[in-house]
C-alpha cells in the first residue's frame, strides 16, 4: 500500500466530516494510505494573489514542505485548501522573489521551491488509481442516476496554477461519475461561483448565485449534484432554495464502493 501525505484542512474536522471520513475509507479500499502531517495549520481559506503578501501564504508552504521532506505527493480534498495550496506551490515555483521572501522567513533546513506534487483527491483517482481501476471496484453502481458535477470556481481556476482540467470543458468529475456507473449531466453553470464566503454578509447574493447553479443543473435533468467543497455544499443546500440533493463526491464514492449506506433523501 502506497502512502501519501493527506491534508484535510480545518472544515473537514468539523462541519464537513463526511467529506473527510469517506475520503479516507475509500482511499484505503483503493489501496492508498493517507497520512496527515504532524502539525498542520489552516490554509487560510483564500489565496491572495497580491505579490506583496507573504505571511498569509506561509502555512500552505509549511504543509507543502512537510510532504517534500517525506518525499511524498500531497493529497487535498477540500476545493478551497486545494486552491490555496496549489496556487502557493505554483507561485513559489515561478517567482524567485516570493521563494526568496518565504524561505528567508521560514528558515527551513532546505529551502522550499515548489518541489511537492499536489493532487486533488479527484486527480488521485484519475492519475494514480485510474478511473478504469476504480470502475472495477464498484459494488453499488449508480446506474441510471443522472449526476451533475459541480466544479465551482476553486477546482479549476486560475487554470494556469490549478492545471487540473480544461477550465471551460472539464471532464474529471464526469469521468468519475461514469466510473461509479452514473450518468454525468453537463450544465453550463457547473464552473460558475456559488457565492462563496459572501454568504456571511450578503445572503441575497449567495442565494442568487447558488440558485443559478441549481437551476442550471435542474434544467439539464440532474437527479443530484456533487461537490468537493464544504462552502459550495452549504450555499447550494442552504441558500439556493432548490430541493435538488447535494452530496460530497466522497460520499457517493464510498457508497459505490460499498463502504456507506445509501442516502435516503
Amino acid at each position, binding site marked *: 500500500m502506497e502512502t501519501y501525505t493527506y491534508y484535510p*484542512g*480545518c*472544515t473537514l474536522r*468539523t*462541519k*464537513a466530516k463526511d467529506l473527510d471520513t469517506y475520503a479516507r475509507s475509500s482511499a484505503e479500499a483503493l489501496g492508498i494510505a493517507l497520512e496527515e502531517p504532524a502539525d498542520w495549520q*489552516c490554509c*487560510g*481559506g*483564500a489565496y*491572495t*494573489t*497580491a*505579490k*506583496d*503578501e507573504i505571511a*498569509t501564504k506561509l502555512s500552505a508552504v509549511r504543509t507543502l514542505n512537510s510532504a517534500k521532506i517525506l518525499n511524498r505527493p500531497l493529497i487535498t480534498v*477540500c476545493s*478551497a485548501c486545494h486552491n490555496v495550496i496549489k496556487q502557493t506551490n505554483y507561485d513559489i515555483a515561478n517567482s524567485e522573489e516570493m521563494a526568496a521572501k518565504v524561505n528567508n522567513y521560514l528558515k527551513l533546513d532546505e529551502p522550499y521551491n515548489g518541489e511537492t506534487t499536489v493532487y486533488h483527491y479527484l486527480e488521485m483517482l484519475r492519475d494514480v488509481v485510474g478511473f478504469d481501476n476504480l470502475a472495477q471496484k464498484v459494488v453499488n453502481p449508480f446506474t441510471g442516476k443522472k449526476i451533475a458535477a459541480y466544479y*465551482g*470556481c476553486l477546482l*479549476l*481556476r*486560475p*487554470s494556469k496554477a490549478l492545471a487540473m482540467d480544461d*477550465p*471551460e470543458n472539464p471532464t474529471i468529475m464526469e469521468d468519475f461519475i461514469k466510473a461509479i456507473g452514473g450518468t454525468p449531466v453537463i450544465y453550463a453553470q457547473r464552473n*460558475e*461561483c456559488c*457565492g*462563496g*464566503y*459572501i*454568504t*456571511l*454578509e*450578503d445572503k441575497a*447574493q449567495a442565494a442568487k*448565485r447558488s440558485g443559478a447553479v441549481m437551476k442550471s443543473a435542474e434544467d439539464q435533468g440532474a437527479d443530484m449534484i456533487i461537490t468537493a*467543497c*464544504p*462552502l459550495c*455544499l*452549504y450555499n447550494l*443546500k*442552504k441558500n439556493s432554495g432548490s430541493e435538488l440533493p447535494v452530496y460530497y463526491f466522497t460520499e457517493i464514492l464510498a457508497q459505490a464502493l460499498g463502504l456507506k449506506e445509501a442516502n435516503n433523501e
Partner: protein
Amino acid sequence: MNKNLQEQVLRSSGVNVLKCMRCGKCSGTCPSYDEMEYHPHQFVYMVERGDIETLMNSKSIYKCLTCFACVDRCPRNVEPAKVVEAVRLAAVRQQGNNHMNPNQIPEMLDEDLPQQAIVTAFRKYIK
C-alpha cells in the same frame, strides 16, 4: 490621480493594465456585476488612470467573489480579479479600515456554516 497608490496597486497585482483592449468580457462574465458599483473593466481602466481612491472607497471591493472567471476568460490575459484584490488590500491595510470585526461573527453563524467561510472572510476583510 494618485501616482503612489497606482504604483502600489500595479506592483501588488502584477497586472499590466495597458494590455486591456476594452472588450468588456470580464464584466460580461462577472457573477457579482449587479452588486458592484464599479465593474471589473472599470477597475482596470480606473487603475490605468490612477483613480484608485474612488475604488478603495467603494463597497465594490468587497463584492468580488475571487472566482477568477475574469482572470481565465480575459482574452488579453489582463487578470482583472488581481487588480480588485490589490485595491482591496490597499484599503484594508489602512489603519482602522478593517471591513469586518470579529465581534460581528457570532450573529452571522448558523449551525451548518463551514469554518471555511469565516477564515476566508477574515483573509478578505481584515488586516
